[in-house]
Structures are given as structure tokens and as C-alpha cells.
């Protein structure tokens, strides 16, 4: 048993230069001809771009393609919502259909989640946060589609999203507080005597900076870990079938995997929501300047 152990979980959750697609095997067993199998499509490899000593490989990978699809789905659903909205405003009729559901979702997120957290005059941050939500949501859901992959289960993707969020948060702080923004980096208590300030500032300034960097780091790790762990559990449960190597116990892992899949569906929405919610909270915090 040990000898033919093969790690098939890591390849499943990591990036690759191939794309899975359904296909039918030529011969072999009958079920291979009736049930679609996974074939691999080799993605093109581009020559790395050299910037100084640093080689940058920007050939599209599986996760890049998933990001494209997620973005495309975002745009398509947006267009549907737009069409429904325009039709409604043109006819002056009551809302109906998928597009309007999406519109209701957009308005809910804006009015109940973003604006209360971001604070007054937060309309400028709504587009960014909604884009974040829908992009992460579709990327999460693509991991649950057969032959799909979870781009948000890749730490590069979540870190980039977190860095973008970090920049937006800091920008919001600068915009809202002006020179007072410096207070979010250098700890300088206004209600203490000067010697006390000089004493305490070098101690607490690193803490301020670490606190600042922890927020996006936690965002990145949270999304990555949630997306990866679900898939790992799912694959581990499926593996039980092969570990037991008996037909009798097949329904048990299948049922458990089904449960986990439903949980994953929930988590896909939850994590997109949490990423957006926490980003809103962070933007609201720095705009308030609670120092």
C-alpha cells in the first residue's frame, strides 16, 4: 500500500499549466466511455520576462484562467442586472428575475454592510468593495464546479487581493485624515506629556505598523485557508473509498463528501462576504482615526 501511495491532493489544490476538461476515454471499461473523464489541456507557456536578474513568468496557469472566468461571470451577471434594472426603470414595473435579485443583493450589500461600516460619505468605496465581493464569490464558486479550480485557494491570489485592499485602506486613511494619517503609523498620544510621548512612541509605533500589516495578512490567510481546507477535506473523504477498497462502504464517504460540498457552497459565500465586510470595517476604522 505504502509503495503506490501518490499525493493527488496537492496537485488538485495547487496551480498548474494544464486545464481539465471533460472527455471520453477511447476504450478501457464501459463506465469510462459513458462517464466523462478528465482530460488535460496544456496551456501555452510564454518566455519569462526578465527584469534585471528577476525572471517573471506570466504564462497563463489554471488559476489565471479561473480568474478570467470569474471576472467574465462578474461582468455577465452585472450586465443581466443592468438589463433588468433598465427594463424596470423604462417600464416602471415591479422587479422580477435574476437580474433584479442581483440588484437587490447589490443594494443590500451597499446599504446594510458597506455604508454602516465605512462610515458617512462612504459611497466612493462601494464599487471597490462590491467588485471584491463578486470577484471572490465567483472565484470561490468555480472551485465547486466540476473541472474547475479554486483560484482563491491560491495564496498568491489572496495575497494580491489583500495587498490591493491594504492600499485602498491606507488611501482611505490618507484621504479622510490628511496629515492625521501619520498618527496611524507613528504612535503619538495627544493626551500625554512630551517626555512620555517620546518614551512611549518608539515602543508602540512598531505595534501600530504590525497591526496595520496584520489586517491584510489575516484577510489573505483566512480566504486561502478556508478555500483550501474544504477541498482537502473533500478529497480526503473521497480517498476513503480507495483506502477501504470495498464497494460496501462507498455510500458513506459519498454522503460525507456531499455534506462537505454543501458546507463549501456556504463557505464560498461566507468568505466572500467576510472579506468584503472586514475590508469595509478596516476602511471605516482608519477613516474614523480612533487615536
Amino acid at each position: 500500500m505504502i509503495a503506490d501511495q501518490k499525493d493527488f491532493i496537492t496537485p488538485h489544490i495547487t496551480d498548474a499549466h494544464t486545464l481539465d476538461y471533460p472527455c471520453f476515454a477511447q476504450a478501457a471499461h464501459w463506465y469510462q466511455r459513458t462517464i466523462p473523464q478528465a482530460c488535460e489541456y496544456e496551456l501555452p507557456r510564454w518566455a519569462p520576462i526578465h527584469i534585471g536578474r528577476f525572471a517573471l513568468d506570466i504564462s497563463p496557469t489554471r488559476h489565471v484562467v479561473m480568474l478570467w472566468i470569474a471576472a467574465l461571470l462578474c461582468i455577465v451577471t452585472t450586465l443581466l442586472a443592468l438589463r433588468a434594472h433598465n427594463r424596470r426603470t423604462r417600464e416602471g414595473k415591479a422587479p422580477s428575475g435574476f437580474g433584479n435579485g442581483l440588484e437587490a443583493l447589490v443594494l443590500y450589500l451597499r446599504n446594510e454592510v458597506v455604508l454602516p461600516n465605512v462610515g458617512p460619505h462612504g459611497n466612493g468605496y462601494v464599487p471597490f468593495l462590491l467588485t471584491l465581493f463578486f470577484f471572490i464569490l465567483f472565484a470561490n464558486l468555480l472551485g465547486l464546479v466540476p473541472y474547475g479550480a479554486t483560484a482563491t485557494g491560491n495564496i498568491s491570489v489572496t495575497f494580491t487581493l489583500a495587498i490591493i485592499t491594504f492600499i485602498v485602506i491606507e488611501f482611505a486613511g490618507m484621504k479622510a485624515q490628511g496629515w492625521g494619517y501619520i498618527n496611524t503609523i507613528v504612535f503619538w498620544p495627544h493626551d500625554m506629556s512630551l517626555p512620555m510621548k517620546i518614551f512611549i512612541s518608539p515602543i508602540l509605533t512598531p505595534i501600530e505598523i504590525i497591526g496595520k500589516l496584520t489586517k491584510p495578512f489575516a484577510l489573505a490567510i483566512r480566504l486561502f485557508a478556508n478555500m483550501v481546507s474544504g477541498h482537502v477535506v473533500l478529497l480526503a473523504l473521497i480517498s476513503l473509498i480507495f483506502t477501504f477498497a470495498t464497494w460496501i462502504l462507498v455510500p458513506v464517504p459519498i454522503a460525507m463528501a456531499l455534506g462537505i460540498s454543501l458546507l463549501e457552497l456556504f463557505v464560498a459565500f461566507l468568505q466572500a462576504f467576510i472579506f468584503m465586510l472586514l475590508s469595509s470595517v478596516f476602511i471605516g476604522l482608519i477613516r474614523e482615526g480612533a487615536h
Partner: protein
Amino acid sequence: MDTLPAPFRLNPGLMIWTLVVFGILAVVLWKSLYPTILKATIDREARIKKDLDDAERLRAESAAALEEQRQLLASARGEATAIIAEARQAAERERSAAVEKTRQEQEDLLHRARREIEAERERAVADIRREAVDIAIAAAGKVVGARLDAAADRKIVEEYIGSIGTGARG
């Protein structure tokens, strides 16, 4: 970086792709979805807020007008009361003045009447006295005869009567 297990390795290419895809998506959604759906919502919100503000303002205005009206009414009522009181006072003054005047007139009349009566009485007393003198002279003349000097006798009698008069008086 390569020493980390595969899932924890950062791939700069993928990071750049994420940035690019997210950036494009954000710009596209910013330009299409939000101007329509969100702007309509924001406009509607602004309109509702404005309507509410207007209603609040109008309510405040009408309340102020009502208050002003009420004050006006109160001041008018006060003024009317003052006017009535003043009129009443004036009437009172007028009446008492009239009464006083009447009383004065009556008193004057009474005085005059009394004086007239007094004068009349004095005149009557003088008349009676003269008459009495005449009668006495005539009677005395009758009694004494013609030998009496009219002028000297008259003086005696008059003195006598005068003494009677003063005696009677005194």
C-alpha cells in the same frame, strides 16, 4: 520561497495576473454597474432625503407661523383687555366727574337759594319794619293828634323800633 510546500509558494506571475484581472474587472464594473444601479439608488436616496428635509423645514415653518399667530392673538387679546379696562376707567372717571359736577351745581343752587331766601327775608323784615313804623306813626298820630312834629317824632319812633329790632334780634 521554493523551500516552502507547494500551496504556500507565492507565484509573482499569478499575482500580477490577479492584479490585472481584478483591476480590469473593477474598472469595468465601476463604469457600467455602478453608474446605473448605484447612481440611481444614490439619487433616489438624495431625493428622499431632500423631501424629508423639505417636509421638516415646512413643518418647522408652519409651527413657527402658528406660534407667531398665537402670540399675535394673545397680544391682540391683551390689547383689547387693556382698551376695555381703559374705557371702563374713563367712563368711571367721566361718571364720577359728572356726579361731582351735579353735586357742585346742586350745592351752588342751594347756596344761591339760601342767599336769596336770606335776602328776601331781610328785605321782608325791613319792609315789615318800615310798615310797622308807618303804622305806628299813623296810629300814634291818630292817638296824639297833629301836634306832634312829624320829623322829630318819626326819629323817636324809628329809634324805638330800631331798638326793638335790635333787641328782637339781639
